[in-house]
């Protein structure tokens, strides 16, 4: 059974979204990291770029597979988790904490969460 914090929002692409003041933090869910298996490389090449909702902002590579990461909402990538450069396995061991992936400044701060899933809604999609 994978962990699913109630205070986060989720996407159908298995990302979680957390509001931190006027920025949002994005990572992948416990379910997603479990499905991918051992993550060996997180490739984010969109720092400082403004992206639309649904655009690819990077990829996570597991031993066997590569998976695109999609912007949950429109915004500018203002920070990437540099720790993942040397410790990509943090995404496996602590997907909602140390394994966060990017920080985004939303294009429209009012838009946050309207298109995202609650923990209950996401749970029903993966079960």
């Amino acid at each position, binding site marked *: 059974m994978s962990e699913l914090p109630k205070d986060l929002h989720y996407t159908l692409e298995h990302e979680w979204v957390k509001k931190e003041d006027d920025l949002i933090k994005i990572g992948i869910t416990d379910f997603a990291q479990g*499905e991918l*298996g*051992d993550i*060996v*490389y997180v*490739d984010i*090449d969109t720092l400082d770029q403004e992206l639309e909702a649904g655009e690819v902002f990077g*990829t996570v*590579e597991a*031993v*066997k597979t*590569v998976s695109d990461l999609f912007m949950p909402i429109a915004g500018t990538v203002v920070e990437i988790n540099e720790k993942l450069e040397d410790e990509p396995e943090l995404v496996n061991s602590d997907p909602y904490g140390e394994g966060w992936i990017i920080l985004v400044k939303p294009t429209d701060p009012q838009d946050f969460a309207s298109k995202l899933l609650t923990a209950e809604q996401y749970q029903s999609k993966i079960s």
Partner: protein
Amino acid sequence: MKFTPFYEMHVNLGAKMLEFAGFQMPMSYRGVKIEHHNVRNNVGVFDVSHMGQFIVRGPKSGEFLEAVTTNNVAKLEKGQAQYTCMTNENGGIIDDLLLYHLLDGAYMLVVNASNIEKDLNWLKQHKESDEIELIDISAKTAMLAVQGPNALQVLAPHTDMDLENMSYYHFDKGIFAGQDKVLVSATGYTGAGGFELYFASSKSETIWNAIWESDEKWGLQAAGLAARDTLRLEKAYCLYGNDIDESTSPLEAGLAWITDLKTDFIGREMLLKQKSSGVARRLVGLELLEKGIARKGYEVLDESGQVLGQVTSGTMSPSLNKAIALAYVNKPYSRVDSRVWVQIRNKRVPAKVVKRPFVS
């Protein structure tokens, strides 16, 4: 959907299952890296019952197999196994397989699960004599690979067969865990040493349970197809459908060592031509020099961006902690230390041609 006799055992061990060649197979149990290292350092058991087995028998079976496989069947003694392949008239690889010489005029072929039907049809089509029997025993045959330095300690307590003195690519058939007619060969697809066991599916539970009686100190764990893939790739063993197929020849794939052009077989003439004119491309090992992982289908480029070929298998090597790949490249670039680039999405990542295997 097909199931191996060990399906329930995998589910009980909490395996992540996937469909492979029509079978529900375990991809991993505790994680591919853990399983990989455990096979290299201790011992792992793989269910490979999806693989196909055919019996070919009759007085002329040796000659028949000589004519459809690339390796030298006449040299294969009873009690020995041989890695070989079947090629079509163009020298393209129909399948790679293991050939076991069971008895005078009796052989077992072990083929890839995805090619069982194709191989059977090909063999039937070329079997000119009714005196040669071809029997597909895949559905009633189970197969386990017990791989790693402690494999002997796990298996030896359950049999009188002399596994300790069994040479590489030799086999014996006898009683294992009280079950008769169990074939054990010193073979495998991991490069970690160990054995492969073949037996009637009805004996699966007894044999599985006996293997798990192994003393904890030997470190036996189940290992899935994901670890099997990283293990074989570190040893640069070809995977059918990735690194070899009907569009590739054994000479291009680095399988000249199992291609005896002095024997007469289907495809030989094309391969002789290829040999005398030289192959245009070769399967090489690549090591990426910057971050990224080369995956199947990615293009390999030269400095100017000209396409040299394609990646056929790629992964992060758990033993080396480096991204490694197999790729076909045009011949001038197949030399060790050649500098090439791999197109990974929107990036060109530098790589160099390295010696195979990646892990010795």
